[in-house]
């Protein structure tokens, strides 16, 4: 089993990396790009047969406490 946590900067937070990459894409000739947001992707391996609901609860807590900073980041949790 695997948990995937995708962390992105909050909309109101300055994302200079995203802005720089967006400009680079435009310079390369890619049109129609209206925004680039750079975040983090974390993969967590879980023991086989782990209870999905319990894992979700624990990982949401971990994501809130450590993996993401709620002041500046949003996250999305997927367990598969």
């Amino acid at each position, binding site marked *: 089993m695997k948990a995937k946590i995708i962390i992105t*900067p909050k909309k*109101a*937070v*300055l994302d*200079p*990396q995203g802005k*720089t990459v967006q400009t680079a894409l435009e310079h390369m000739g890619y049109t129609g790009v209206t925004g680039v947001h750079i975040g*983090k992707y974390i993969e967590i391996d879980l023991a086989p047969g782990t209870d999905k609901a319990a894992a979700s609860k624990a990982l949401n807590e971990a994501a809130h406490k*450590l*993996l993401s*900073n709620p*002041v*500046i980041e949003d996250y999305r949790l997927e367990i598969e």
Partner: protein
Amino acid sequence: MNFSVLQFPASNCDQDAVHAVRLLGHSARLVWHKDAALGDTDCVIVPGGFSYGDYLRCGAIARFSPVMQAVKQFADNGGLVIGICNGFQVLTEAGLLPGALIRNRDLQFHCENIFLKTATNDSPFTSQIPAGKILRVPIAHGEGCYFADEETLAKFKANNQILWQYCDASGNLTDTANPNGALQNIAGICNEKRNVAGLMPHPERACEPLLGSDDGKWIFESIFAALKNKTVAVAG
């Protein structure tokens, strides 16, 4: 006065902080990050540098160290805590100070002297800074862009929690004087109780003329004065 300067793996301004405090006539010692107690302490300095590789986010792992639990308790009891640079990042991650520090807006590491305007003298960290004095102190950071939501900024205004702002040599809060894109040119803040402060600039590197500026000493002199008053108050 006894200063405890924390030491994390990769702290690199810890010795500077100890040196500055001793130079100004008080005692300071290093406290290892694995220590669960601070010992006899009047003020804690969370120094600059890095901590635990700053993996994930700056200061994100350091806040779970045993010594930080002791610092939290010390702060909860009203003890004075000041975080400098990475120390500021650690204190925000630990929830002892609001907001967060993100990547500089130009994505570059800035190592230079900047000017600081003191926004209020009403704190244990600013009380002795002469009125109108513009402090010239160095910065050295890649992630010093202060961010907080609107609600927090409104609270800062209501409670006078902004302590220092980046300015030009004449004290104007301009955008060009802002090295990292921090909201409202914020360089340093304090908590609501005013006993915990954090700032990105390095006052400990500007406490003697030999280093080009001794303006940083005013911040330490403010802490000394606050501790002296406190001792008198407790004794009285």
